[in-house]
């Protein structure tokens, strides 16, 4: 899934790219409205995060142009002023959600995940049907898992990791394969990235993260889901 991020502040833009890539999304970054429209035209993102006040072309105008071509594409607006959000809603630009600055990572992730779920439902993406890993019921389209009554929120990347393990039940999957499948061939995270993600995932799904049962470490090889 690809997200277009249009934000004129370089640090915020890079930070959002980092957050979304960590979540498992492909990213396109634009520093102004004009570049945003070019990237939109060229790379057809699955949804868009738009800053409102940008040079060249404002977020409002970028949204209008996007809507002219695609009525259903999810758009999240980023703004420092709630008045701007009121204007967005008033203009009926079809914004799906908004994020007010200053935002925390969790807030961004929550909104991105909500939009992703809508995308899944909207586009009926293949491979999003429910599956079970022992007592864990996983719903890819909702980016959620259920353990008994407990509902666990998952990122796109975590979902990809679980899907990979599910489809390779009983097999040891080496680190490179996990990286390629879940991060993509073009992406070169450091080795710690994978370990951190697995560690974070274990905290969510394992009864005892220190004694993992579902995702086991096979030292020197990789990881395995025994089933």
């Amino acid at each position, binding site marked *: 899934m690809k997200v277009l991020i249009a934000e004129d502040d370089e640090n915020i833009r890079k930070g959002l790219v980092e*957050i979304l890539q960590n979540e498992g999304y492909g990213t396109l970054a634009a520093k102004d409205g004009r570049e945003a429209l070019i990237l939109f035209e060229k790379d057809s993102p699955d949804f868009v995060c738009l800053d409102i006040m940008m040079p060249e072309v404002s977020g409002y105008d970028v949204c209008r142009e996007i809507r002219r071509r695609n009525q259903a594409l999810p758009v999240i607006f980023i703004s420092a002023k709630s008045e701007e959000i009121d204007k967005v809603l008033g203009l009926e630009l079809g914004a799906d959600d908004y994020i007010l600055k200053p935002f925390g990572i969790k807030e961004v992730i929550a909104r991105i995940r909500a939009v992703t779920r809508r995308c899944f439902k909207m586009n009926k993406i293949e491979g999003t049907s429910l599956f079970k890993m022992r007592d864990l019921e996983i719903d890819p389209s909702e980016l959620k898992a259920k353990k008994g009554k407990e509902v666990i929120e998952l990122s796109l990347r975590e979902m990809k990791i679980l899907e990979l393990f599910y489809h390779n039940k009983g097999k040891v999957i080496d680190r490179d394969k996990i990286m390629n499948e879940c991060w993509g061939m073009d992406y070169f995270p450091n080795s710690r990235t994978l370990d951190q993600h697995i560690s974070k995932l274990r905290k969510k799904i394992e009864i005892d993260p220190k004694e993992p049962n579902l995702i086991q470490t096979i030292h020197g090889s990789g990881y395995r889901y025994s089933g």
Partner: protein
Amino acid sequence: MKFKLLIIFLFILILPLTLLLGIGLKWSQDEQKIIQNQINELNLQKLQLLRQTVDSFIQNEQKELHEFLSSINEDKSQLRDLIRKSPKVSQLFILDSKGGWSYPSPAMDDLSENERQFLERSDKRLYQKIRQMDFQAGEVQRSSQLGIWSSYFWNNQMVLIYSEKTAENKIIGIELNRINFISRLMSVFPDTPQNEKSKPFRISFNDSQGNIFYQWGSNKGTPKVKLNLSSPLDSMELTYYSEEENPGRSFRFNFFSGLGFLVVSLLGMGFYFYRENAREIREAEKRVTFVNLVSHELKTPLTNIRMYSELLEQYLDETDEKSSQYLKVLVSESERLSRLIGNVLSFAKKEKNQLKLRKNSGSIKKIIEKSIEQFSLSLKEKGIEVVFTSQEDSLVELDEDLVLQIIGNLISNVEKYAPLGKVIKIEHRKEGERSVVTVSDEGPGIPKEKREKIFEPFFRLANQLTAGATGTGIGLTIARDLARLHGGDLVLVDSEKGASFQLTILTPEIQGD
């Protein structure tokens, strides 16, 4: 706001001035009427004096006519001779006791033209009039004998008759020479004064059709007062003329000058206050705009600080406790700065009546948990235990950011002002469509007399325990305003120990999918 102020100012200014103007005009009109009436009364008195003069003239005339009639006999020649010699007399006449013409008589074969015309015009008119007259009740009485004046119109001209009854019950009378009579009458009226020092006027002596016989005075004005003369000249009148007067002019001048001065003063004062108020509003708007601008500009770097702190936290080695702790401080302080900017912005918006509700779906329980998490570091550092109980966790309609801001302000106050209580209790329950959240501490509490004041902007309890605490003094003000915006309220409720704030907001349930 400016427009509203201008309307109020104009209303306050115009209403009393309009009333004053109305009253003043009424007074002025009444004054004018009174003065005009007084002037008319004075002028009428002048005419009445003149009428008395005319009455005296008529009385004298009657005496002379009586003496004249007393001396005549019925000899036709003598009568004719008397007529010829007396310029006063137009015609003499005698009616016999039966009312028939004795002189001049239609039977006379040597009737003069004058006599013939007299008979022609007088026959019925005079005859009827005199026959009807009661000599005893005549309008003009002589000292010893009664004579009657009568008049009628012939060819639009007045004919004046004086007649008396004789001892033989005959009636003898005189038709007066009209021109002679009028000219003698006019001689009793004054001349036009030369070098008139008093106000110009004019009086005319005219008949009822307005034909002026005589007038004196120089004024070319309009008739103001009329007075009919007494009988037998009651078809004639005296008319007083004067120019259009402007009575009460000095009163009106003084009144309207005063009113004008008052208007100018009020306008001046009003303009001064309006301008001062407008200037204050402009200054306040500038301050608010500046606050908005600064807050907006602060948000971008703050976003970066918070975002990168949280990103760094993700990459941190879990075993590196110190780095982890420092990062937590960064995150916590950036959240604190966010709350502060949020409060300042909300306060600025409140000043401009721009606070708005933006409802969505959310969970009160999750919002409280989020808020507690934001304060977890600072609460832990101060050794404050959090006890949170929640009745349920359903999806409701609310403004998440707003509720988070309120809860944040309440927890922040406990952290700042009641840390020694060592505990913060947060309780959440549903009451129908309302969510009730109570935030209590076991700190020093709030004196009863300050229970409402604490919600006032910039008010802070000044005592030893709070003396060192930082804060803007707008947290509770904002919290209450936001609670009310959300269809609820924030109140300080009674508690055995410490302070207990109860937040109530309207949160309708959202039906599940």
